[in-house]
């Protein structure tokens, strides 16, 4: 096989078709993810429309400063990821690894801040279940808000953890020189995943942290 075709798998006509197929497949997965998170957002909407006051109370107990910082951290990680894709398309190994490392650091920062927030909620008895200790107004309904808070941010954080693992895998591949200007598809497809996770947070932040602030 000639060097030109090293990245081309035998069942594709050319690199363009191979790339299009990867992109469509990745989007098919992301469409499924949109509807998966969509179910959680729907549950949130149904209960929030039923108990608007309790959701405002629950929201006002969250730390808007930490949530805001995390939003900025995640958007910054999307920028570094976009730049990692940019350098992957140029086939610059060192810069791919540099920007993947920055993305990993920012992603880990997000998760670290999330741990601080979770432990804070734990110590204040805001985790639904046996330990739930909030006894202010509408306690039972505030508990429902916190069920959504932990289910939605927890599922988001799980996606971040999986993403962090995949970044390490991409860094190893990049270090082995697997990505060239001709073939950078895995970095690009992972970029789509990472940006999707960012989009989920773009909606979670106002819906969980910013209601009932005024």
């Amino acid at each position, binding site marked *: 096989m000639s060097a030109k075709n090293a990245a081309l798998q035998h069942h594709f006509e050319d690199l363009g078709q191979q790339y299009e197929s990867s992109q469509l497949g990745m989007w098919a997965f992301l469409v499924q993810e949109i509807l998966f998170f969509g179910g959680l957002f729907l549950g949130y*909407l149904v209960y929030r429309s039923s108990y608007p006051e309790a959701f405002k109370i629950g929201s006002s107990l969250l730390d808007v400063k930490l949530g805001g910082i995390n939003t900025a951290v995640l958007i910054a990680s999307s*920028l570094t990821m976009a*730049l990692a894709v940019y350098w992957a398309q140029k086939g610059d190994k060192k810069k791919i690894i540099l920007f993947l490392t920055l993305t990993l650091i920012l992603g880990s920062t997000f998760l670290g801040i999330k741990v601080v927030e979770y432990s804070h909620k734990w110590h204040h008895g805001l985790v639904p279940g046996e330990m739930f200790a909030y006894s202010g107004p509408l306690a039972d309904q505030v508990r429902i808000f916190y069920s959504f808070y932990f289910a939605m941010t927890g599922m988001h954080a799980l996606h971040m953890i999986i993403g962090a693992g995949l970044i390490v895998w991409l860094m190893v591949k990049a270090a082995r020189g697997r990505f060239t200007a001709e073939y950078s598809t895995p970095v690009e497809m992972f970029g789509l995943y990472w940006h999707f996770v960012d989009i989920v947070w773009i909606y979670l932040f106002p819906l969980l942290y*910013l209601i009932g602030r005024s």
Partner: protein
Amino acid sequence: MPQHTIPKRIYYIIFGALMFLTAITIWVAFIDLGAFSDVIALGIATTKATLVILYFMHVRYSSKLTWAAVFSGFLFLAILLTITMSDYLTRGWDSLPKPW
């Protein structure tokens, strides 16, 4: 190279816009606008999501097939949300006496 390379400058501009919109949405959240608060918060979030999808996720430069796939995802999400909420939000609208 089969894929479209987007100039770095565009990524920086989008990043700036996303940060700016984040600041705006936090600022607006502390102003009492009644029901409009939600409309503005979701409007800003959707603007941010659209910027991420079009530029960071390259959909603006992608094939029609990719456009169709992305659009179908949000179309079905809209169906899910609209039909379910049109049920929940309209319950109790009728003033008919309950048979039980």
